[in-house]
């Protein structure tokens, strides 16, 4: 089943390119540990999901590119075309001549309705090329102007027009010390709108990925390209094909659907984060070997101590000893910074994957009281290695780890809002104070729900 990707704004388009590139590279990576037949099945599955076929044989990404200015889109299109390996569709992009000046309200109230028909037509054409549509990826930044406002508008449209299809927004969480003054306002509005119309919000934090680049990849001058490539690697390791079940050797048809069913069925808990291990520069990779036991031990500790990478993990954090807290009582024995999960999905790729022992992830102490580990924890596996990593593990989790960043943003935005700073930029284009208040209320509710696990 196919996924159609909508790339929005500068952020969305640059990341989208890296994602398709990572998916393509991985599926054509020479494999040492799996049979030719299996590799072909893997390639076919990846291809069907993310690329469509054209007459001359070059795969075309199932994507629609949207931006209010032409520069980034043209760069993206030509980069893909020049690679010669895959490309974007000739008519799959939409852009305007002028920018939108980082104004969320302009993106939502003006650009959105004005260009709605053209953009939805492009998406419709892409959908018609699919034999079956699993759902949509919408890649966008949370705090920018075009990407965020327009993205919120488009997601709502997709909800109306394709109500049965699944929608996952890939949201880029801005740097804490970002450049845009109103980024917190934009974040509040984006998140609150998306929470209502999207099925899942997969959050990629710029700060976290930046650290990965610095510490693990040893990159001296970190560019956006490096960050985007790490991000693309994470996404690829989640959505590339995996077996459909324990003991099965068929690749699962609908990973997006399975992921959503496992992680975000509750309407109040839609925020997801992704971690993966190992992550290192290609040079170091040649000299390293890993065991599943070691990888999984680190991954688990990353989860419970809310670390984003395998360096600098706080090994002191432990799950609470008393087991399941009784219903209704605040869990007093829980460590202050223990990261409780609602649900987790671990994806294992590589050699001897069936020998990996995941018992530690099934500990009920990791999870909230109202879900048993048998429901809350899921595993996907494939023997086929990802990219150049002989063994790799990814973890998608619905946990408390985004509460602190979210709370910080809400706090800062509220302070600005209390003094009515910069509000005229929004009210000028139809976003009233009430919309802000709705947004604050919704997000406070989300924070409270996550805190109360």
């Amino acid at each position, binding site marked *: *089943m196919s996924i159609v990707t909508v790339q929005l704004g500068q952020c969305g388009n640059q990341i989208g390119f890296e994602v398709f590139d990572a998916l393509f590279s991985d599926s054509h990576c020479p494999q040492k540990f799996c049979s030719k037949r299996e590799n072909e099945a893997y390639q076919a599955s990846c291809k069907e999901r993310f690329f469509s076929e054209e007459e001359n044989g070059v795969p075309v990404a199932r994507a629609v590119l949207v931006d209010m200015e032409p520069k980034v889109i043209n760069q993206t299109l030509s980069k893909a075309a020049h690679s010669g390996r895959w490309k974007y569709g000739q008519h799959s992009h939409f852009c305007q001549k002028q920018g939108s000046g980082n104004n969320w309200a302009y993106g939502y109230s003006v650009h959105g309705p004005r260009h709605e028909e053209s953009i939805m037509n492009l998406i419709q054409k892409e959908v018609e090329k699919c*034999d*079956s*549509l*699993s*759902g949509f990826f919408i890649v966008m930044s949370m705090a920018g102007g075009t990407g965020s406002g327009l993205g919120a508008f488009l997601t709502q449209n997709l909800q109306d027009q394709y109500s*049965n*299809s*699944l929608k996952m927004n890939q949201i880029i969480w801005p740097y804490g010390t970002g450049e845009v003054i109103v980024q917190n306002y934009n974040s509040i509005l984006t998140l609150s709108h998306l929470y209502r119309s999207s099925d899942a919000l997969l959050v990629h934090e710029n700060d976290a990925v930046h650290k990965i680049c610095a510490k693990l990849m040893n990159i001296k001058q970190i560019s956006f390209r490096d960050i985007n490539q790490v991000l693309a690697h994470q996404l690829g390791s989640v959505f590339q094909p995996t077996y459909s079940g324990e003991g099965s050797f068929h690749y699962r*048809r*609908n990973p997006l*659907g*399975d992921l*959503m*069913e496992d992680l*975000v*069925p*509750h*309407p*109040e808990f839609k925020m997801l984060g992704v971690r993966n291990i190992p992550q290192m520069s290609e040079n170091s990779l040649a000299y390293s070997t890993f065991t599943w036991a070691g990888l999984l031990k680190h991954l688990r500790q990353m989860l419970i101590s809310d670390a984003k990478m395998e360096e600098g993990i706080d090994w002191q954090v432990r799950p609470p000893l008393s087991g399941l807290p009784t*219903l209704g009582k605040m869990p007093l024995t829980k460590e202050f910074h223990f990261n409780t999960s609602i649900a987790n999905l671990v994806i294992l790729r590589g050699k001897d994957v069936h020998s990996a022992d995941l018992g530690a992830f099934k500990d009920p102490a990791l999870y909230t*009281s*109202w*879900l048993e580990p048998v*429901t809350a924890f899921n595993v996907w596996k494939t023997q086929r290695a990802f990219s150049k990593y002989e063994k790799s593990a990814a973890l998608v989790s619905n946990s408390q780890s985004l509460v602190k960043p979210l709370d910080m943003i809400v706090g800062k935005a509220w302070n600005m809002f209390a003094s009515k700073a910069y509000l005229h930029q929004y009210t000028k284009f139809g976003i009233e104070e009430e919309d802000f208040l709705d947004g604050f209320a919704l997000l406070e509710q989300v924070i409270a729900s996550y805190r109360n696990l």
Partner: protein
Amino acid sequence: MGRRRRRRVDPADAARALPEAIAVLTRTLPTGPSPETFRRAKFDRPEAAPALWRLLFCVLSPMPADGASPSLALEAQARSVKAALRFQGYPRRALAQLPDDGSQGGRELLLALAWLLARGPTLEQLLAQSRVRLGDEMPVCECESLASPGPAVPSVEADGCVDIRHLQWLMGKLRFRWRKLMASQQEQCALLGKIHSYTRGCHSDRSLGHLSVTETELLRDPEGGQQLLQRLERENVRLEAALEWRRRELVFWQWMDTVLGACPPEASQPTFLPKIPAQGAAELELVVRELQALQEELQGVAETRPYDPFDLLVDTWAPPASLHEQDWVGGHGPEWSASRRALQEAVRQDLVALQWAWERGGGLAQPHGPHRLVRTEAGAPEGRGLQATEVIEVLRSREACLEVVLGQLQGQCRQELARLVGTLPGLIWIPPPGR
């Protein structure tokens, strides 16, 4: 029997007739126990019981014969059988009282089997369900799925409070599965369309024109073709056994009379109220009281007034809310007759709507059940069988009716919730925002 037969029956033949008849019957059924098991069951021997529980489970649950259905434990099968028989209206209570572990009850199970065979086309239904399908089929009505309740799901006892977040989680999972199912079905349709159009002109039967998935697989995979042939042969055996059963079954029914005679007489009870579990007793008591009140009311009404079927319909058909209005039940006066008139009017409107929908829908000319999908070129002469456009129209009008009913039910639910909330002081009801 003596009057019908011309020649005298040889006693040795007569002795063999019964086990042979039973042997033929078991060849027809999906998992037939031996004639010896049947004999033991008549005398209620415990070793016969498990086999018969399993047989009844296979007969009653609508699972495909070739599908790899997960084998349930005997206890779960026994519970499922009891539930299914109750659903079909099986009258003998002795079976419901058999222990769940499946260790007893051979004779009662025999009687249940005979009851199923006698009352309806059970054998024919079983054979139809498990027949080998060569074409790509699609049901045009829901009759089959509505008639059988499906395997009984073991109910989970909730001890103590249930966290509502868990329930919301489960609801959400259901919704996602629904959406995944929709996507899968669309995929299947798209792929079927491709196969049908690629194999145009390949079928030897001109009226079909193209191959189905099974037929395409036959060509691609000779090994699979062998397996298909074996399945067809097995089906043939069962069909022949079914025909022979029709010739021999008389002796079986005579024997069943003796089985019935061997049972102890059953004591009769007036009403069969369900057992109330310990928890939730308060709510269930309320329901039980209301049901008893309704029953008394019905009896009173039936006794005091001349029998008018429409009146009875109106009195017994009542929306849930009105059960709580003390004046309505057995009341008099202008209020009561006004609400009764309103009720009659509502029922008349419903009947009219149903009739209109049925007439508009046309009532499909073809019989119910699955139909083979055949794809024809636009403008080609119409073949025999249903046109897809007809079916789509009927389904659309039925969908519209169901949407109306859904709206009404949701409205009733909201009213009921509002009423419940009103009874609790200090509770504020905030309805969720529209989707």
